[in-house]
């Protein structure tokens, strides 16, 4: 799907800029770019588009003929697709993939608070893949999670669903813990809306914990833009019977942190993430959920009381 124009923010001949928005985790992100740009929304992001003139994060997209690797030592190297550098009053993210080019195919310049981002697309590297999604993974996640790391929320590794009878349920887990399996079992047994089978955003509003769906799904490929209030959190563990074990708050905060996606390049952001998680475990109880991967697990959670 080609990007839809929701509002023209500038009309300077011969360049006309188009603006479009997505909202993820309650954070709105506006993308401004040349209307003739060879871009599109990915299928996953299409479900998160919104009409909005206000945006928490303003992203301007520019095509450049080529990019060279940013000079200097990175402040953090993801070990995979991206590295982050400290520029003049801003952060610089280089995104590189050996299958695309040996130089960055994207570069982000961001204000320290991530309210404004300039995104450069390397025409030489990306032309064979056009049309491209400017916010394609991991760009969208990097921007949103860094914005949230001001104490506004955190992205966690888990599956979230809304059951028509029992409300929102969040199951955290590392890879292989059973998130997609849990999602599929619930879907086969109940009337549920799956927010994501892999990544959920947590926010606190008016003293209540809320979870939001994200476009960043797992194996089961569930992603939707809904949200639900949470009254407890489960951490998935394989078991030979269904069993809930209450976790002390300190333990729960540590287990949540181990299943979150904090910005490791910033000490301040890490501190605020831990403080946010401390707030989360003070609002809702957390349980280790040893489960059997069949419908008995659904029954156990549906009938569970704190």
């Amino acid at each position: 799907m080609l990007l839809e124009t929701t509002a023209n923010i500038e009309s300077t001949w011969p360049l006309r800029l188009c603006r479009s928005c997505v909202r993820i985790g309650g954070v709105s992100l506006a993308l401004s770019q040349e209307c003739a740009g060879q871009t599109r929304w990915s299928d996953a992001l299409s479900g998160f588009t919104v009409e909005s003139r206000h945006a928490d994060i303003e992203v301007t997209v520019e095509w450049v003929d080529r990019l060279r690797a940013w000079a200097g030592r990175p402040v953090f190297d993801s070990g995979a697709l991206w590295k982050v550098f400290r520029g003049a009053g801003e952060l610089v993210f280089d995104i590189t993939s050996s299958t695309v080019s040996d130089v960055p195919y994207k570069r982000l310049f961001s204000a320290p608070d991530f309210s404004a981002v300039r995104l450069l697309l390397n025409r030489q590297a990306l032309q064979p893949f056009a049309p491209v999604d400017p916010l394609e993974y991991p760009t969208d996640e990097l921007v949103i999670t860094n914005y949230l790391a001001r104490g506004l929320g955190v992205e966690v590794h888990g599956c979230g669903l809304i059951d028509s009878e029992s409300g929102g349920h969040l199951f955290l887990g590392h890879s292989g813990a059973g998130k997609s399996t849990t999602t599929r079992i619930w879907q086969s047994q109940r009337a549920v809306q799956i927010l994501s089978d892999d990544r959920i955003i947590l926010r606190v509003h008016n003293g209540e914990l809320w979870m939001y769906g994200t476009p960043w799904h797992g194996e089961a490929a569930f992603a939707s833009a809904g949200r639900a209030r949470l009254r407890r959190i489960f951490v998935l563990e394989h078991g030979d019977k269904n069993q809930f074990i209450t976790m002390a708050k300190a333990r729960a905060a540590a287990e949540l942190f181990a299943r979150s996606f904090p910005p490791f390049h910033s000490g301040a952001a890490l501190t605020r993430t831990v403080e946010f998680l401390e707030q989360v475990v003070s609002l809702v109880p957390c349980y280790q959920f040893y489960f059997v991967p069949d419908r008995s697990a659904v029954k156990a959670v549906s009938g569970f009381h704190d």
Partner: protein
Amino acid sequence: MTEKNGRREKRTYEPPKVTVISLRPEEAVLGHCKNASASGPVGGSCAVSGCNVIGS
């Protein structure tokens, strides 16, 4: 210390315990292969580099 019948009772001493919690950095750092369904250049990167499919 807790109050019971007007008397303060000592809680049983529990020695501190060390619990090891795995951070799994290969999963916690964004930008590693997330799942096989990633589209575009990134999806290609995951396929060629032979990363494990870690989404579950």
